[in-house]
């Protein structure tokens, strides 16, 4: 019997999504912290692009090169997903993006909780 339930695509995707959403929160925090910095241009993450390239399996990220199978992987799995723009920071837009990001994060967490509840249900044999 395989443990497909724990390692299926949905679970992995949810995990990845949480990582990206946290990274996006950092990007937005950086933008808002630099609200009054002269010559600062906002950075952003485009989730449409990231998700579509992830599902097609050709997501381009920057990571450390492993020249030996014994090497540990890089600790920054999301590096290279951030885009530099030429726009100034607009507080209103940034706050809207942040709210959207937070809600999406909560939705992903909720989905993860439901998945785990389903597993719990199976473990309990449906007795509860």
């Amino acid at each position, binding site marked *: 019997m395989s443990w497909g339930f724990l390692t299926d695509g949905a679970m992995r995707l949810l995990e990845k999504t*949480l*990582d990206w*959403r*946290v*990274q996006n*929160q*950092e*990007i*937005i*925090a*950086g*933008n*808002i*912290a*630099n*609200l*009054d*910095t*002269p010559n*600062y241009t906002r*950075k952003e993450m485009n989730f449409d692009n990231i998700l579509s390239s992830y599902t097609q399996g050709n997501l381009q990220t*920057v990571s450390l090169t492993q020249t030996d199978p014994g090497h540990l992987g890089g600790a*920054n799995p999301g*590096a*290279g997903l*951030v*885009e*530099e723009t030429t726009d100034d920071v607009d*507080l209103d837009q*940034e*706050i809207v993006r*942040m*709210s959207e*990001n*937070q809600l999406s*994060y*909560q939705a992903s*967490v909720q989905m*993860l*909780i439901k998945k*785990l509840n389903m597993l*719990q249900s199976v473990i309990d044999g449906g007795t509860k």
Partner: protein
Amino acid sequence: MSMFKAMDLSASGLTAQRQRLDVIAENLANLNTTRTAQGGPYKRKSVVMEARPAEDFDSLLGSPEKVEVVQISEDSKGLRPEYDPGHPDADQDGNVLYPNINPVSEMVHLMLASRAYEANVAVLRTGKAMAQKALEIGRG
């Protein structure tokens, strides 16, 4: 841990905006100061903010940047001369130089600093809410 990095970034914003607020308070307090340790009237100060990469290597990967007050600059242009021959700091013509501070513009900057501070608090709160939500994973 990644979640706290977002909070670090917001904290840098809070620090910078508070420093800006301090400088504005100093300007307003010294609205009529005609004598300073450097000599001459008080001159309007303003903060210079700069984006700094959180960690050196990360700057190459387009990671978010902290903000830092790198300099507090002094503006010596536009000092207000006022005719007041009885003043101890008056020159030969009876003019006293007053600081180049416009209270209205200082108040506007005060509001801007306050709003920017609030925006950083909002981001901090959101980051915290996300971390708390993540703690719910696997909790029955």
